[in-house]
């Protein structure tokens, strides 16, 4: 029982990394922009956050540094794809490749660094409940922020005027433009929000989750987060659910190893990647299902006034 509670807690923790990034990417995609640079932004944010904590000793400075790094890179990406109409896929890829190189370059000095002792968290009262306490209520505050973020995004997208405008920009930028909305600026803000959330996720990874800096440490989580938005057919709650599911797949390998299951570790480590491929294939199997839910202008450039 106790090991099950720990497994649930670890799943919650791992899912948080994916959830924050994927929810950010969801907003970006709702505005019509696919940012394949998620992996690169997360890597740069991971080292930015880690370095900030090494120098200041304050985790929250690290999170802010990560968000700033993510939003900054997303802004560069955004200017290229939104104003210069560069290909979204190629530009995102450039960001991922640049981020991998740049984070490794900057991070060399921090490979051996250690963070101050990591505090442990517990919600008073709730964390004392047997089983449920250790499973759910001993997480870092950001784990609960992820849930709040999903709820806030639902409220924003479906209950506010700004959310409606954002969705209309993603569905039909031409119509939004002719109604007088600044399509490009709205898209830039959405992309930067996506970058900031990828940044927060990357900083969480290096400051709380691991907590270390290792070259390439995001190891595909940015790409899995991108896949999650498709899995979830761009619905925030499904993104959250998918993130925990994949957190569970990631954690299952450690659990199986600790149970002494005799499977080579490499095969277990493949699980999240193979699971991503399998789920992606199953969800995408019905093209109509994807087409109905996908923001209609996603991936396509927009030329105002043409």
């Amino acid at each position, binding site marked *: 029982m106790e090991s099950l509670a720990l497994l649930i807690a670890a799943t919650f923790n791992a899912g948080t990394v994916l959830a924050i990034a994927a929810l950010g990417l969801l907003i970006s995609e709702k505005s019509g922009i696919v940012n*394949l640079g998620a992996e*690169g932004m997360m890597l740069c944010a991971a080292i930015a956050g880690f370095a900030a904590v090494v120098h200041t000793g304050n985790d929250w400075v690290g999170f802010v540094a990560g968000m700033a790094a993510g939003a900054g890179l997303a802004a*560069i990406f955004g200017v*290229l794809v939104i*104003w*210069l*109409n*560069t*290909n979204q*896929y*190629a*530009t995102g*890829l*450039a*960001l991922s*490749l*640049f*981020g*991998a*190189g*740049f984070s*490794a*370059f900057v991070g*060399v000095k921090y490979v051996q660094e250690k963070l101050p002792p990591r505090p442990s968290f517990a919600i008073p009262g709730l964390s004392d409940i047997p089983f449920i306490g250790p499973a759910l209520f001993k997480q870092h505050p950001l784990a609960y922020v992820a849930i709040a973020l999903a709820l806030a995004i639902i409220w924003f997208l479906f209950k506010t005027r700004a959310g409606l405008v954002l969705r209309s920009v993603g569905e039909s930028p031409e119509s939004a433009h002719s109604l007088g909305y*600044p399509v*490009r600026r709205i898209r830039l803000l959405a992309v930067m929000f996506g970058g900031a959330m990828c940044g927060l996720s990357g900083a969480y990874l290096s400051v709380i989750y691991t907590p270390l800096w290792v*070259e390439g440490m995001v*190891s*595909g989580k940015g*790409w*899995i987060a*991108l*896949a999650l938005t*498709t899995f979830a057919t761009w619905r925030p709650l499904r993104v959250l659910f998918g993130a925990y599911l994949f957190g569970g797949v990631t954690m299952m390998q450690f659990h199986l190893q600790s149970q002494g299951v005799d499977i*080579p570790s*490499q*095969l277990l*480590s*493949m699980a999240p*990647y*193979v699971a*991503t*491929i399998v789920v*992606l*294939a*199953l969800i*995408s*199997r*019905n*093209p109509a299902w*994807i087409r109905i839910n996908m923001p209609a202008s996603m991936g396509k450039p927009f030329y*105002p*006034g*043409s």
Partner: protein
Amino acid sequence: MLKLEARPQASKLWGIGSPLLALVITVIIGVAIFMLMGKDPVKGLLVFFWEPVKSGYALSELAVKATPLLLIALGLAVCFRSNVWNIGAEGQFVLGAVTAGGVALLADKSTGPWIIPLILLAGVLGGMLWAGIVALLRDRFNASEILVSLMLVYVAELVLSYMVYGPWKDPNGFNFPQSKNFEKVTQIPKLLDGTRMNVGLLIALFGAVGMWIFMFRTYGGFQLQVGGLAPAAAKYAGFSSRRALWTALLVSGGMAGLAGALEVAGPIGQLTPYVPAGYGFAAIIVAFVGRLNPIGIVFSAILMSMFYIGGELAQSRLGLPKSLTGVFQGLLLFTLLACDTLIAYKIKFSRSAGSQ
């Protein structure tokens, strides 16, 4: 206030000028990085642009690194021209290296040189298998080839890791995760004594010629390009988009697998966890910088090879991290994409400060 004005026709001049301008901007940023790191920028530039070409041996090393980049980028050019986004060439390269390495490990003292074509064939098939999974899932399940091909990179690296930690680990290797050294007979024939250049370079150059003929002089290549540029037109003409998908992925997977085979049976000579060197990702940049054109790709492969060698020298001579290579690669693609705007647009300076 800067303003973009659409050109009536794409500029041919900027088609060639854009990569050069991107390189100039990347170099300027590079100089700034050297200065920020407190290094002499002249020394830095020499390491990247003079050392790799200053002697016959240096040139041969340049060719050694350019070979896999050229092979993979040629295949990717076919993919990108068909609008198929295979970004997992790294995985296809690694799996080609694994299958080729598996064949190379079968060789013993009595094996003849006939093993070499088998090794290369195994590499091609390995790469095709890995890309074939992507094609199958895209074709049958409509799954994004971008995400599937990328996820398979991680899987391929884990397959390699499993083999060198497990079944193929050298029993006399002091427990290092590596296979035994391949038999001498499996070594890809060298072009010149005293260098590491091998026939892989010739294969890659023939590949460039073959690619040019295929893309620009055959009906099959034409169909692929129409499908990439104007899917609706291709459909109207009755060109099969499914066949284009499979062709593009199998060609690029096969080329990447071949590059993997040539690496393990050539300069590396055994399987280790260090087989993946990022060539599959760098080749994406090579393909774009070379304008998806075989001749351009030859030049951009040489340029990218300079980045690799320069990065290694910057580490040993200037004490800078080797990952500088990755920074420059990413910067080059970024600036290239920005400069490509000049192909379709003119920049106008207008005095009115209106927005958009």
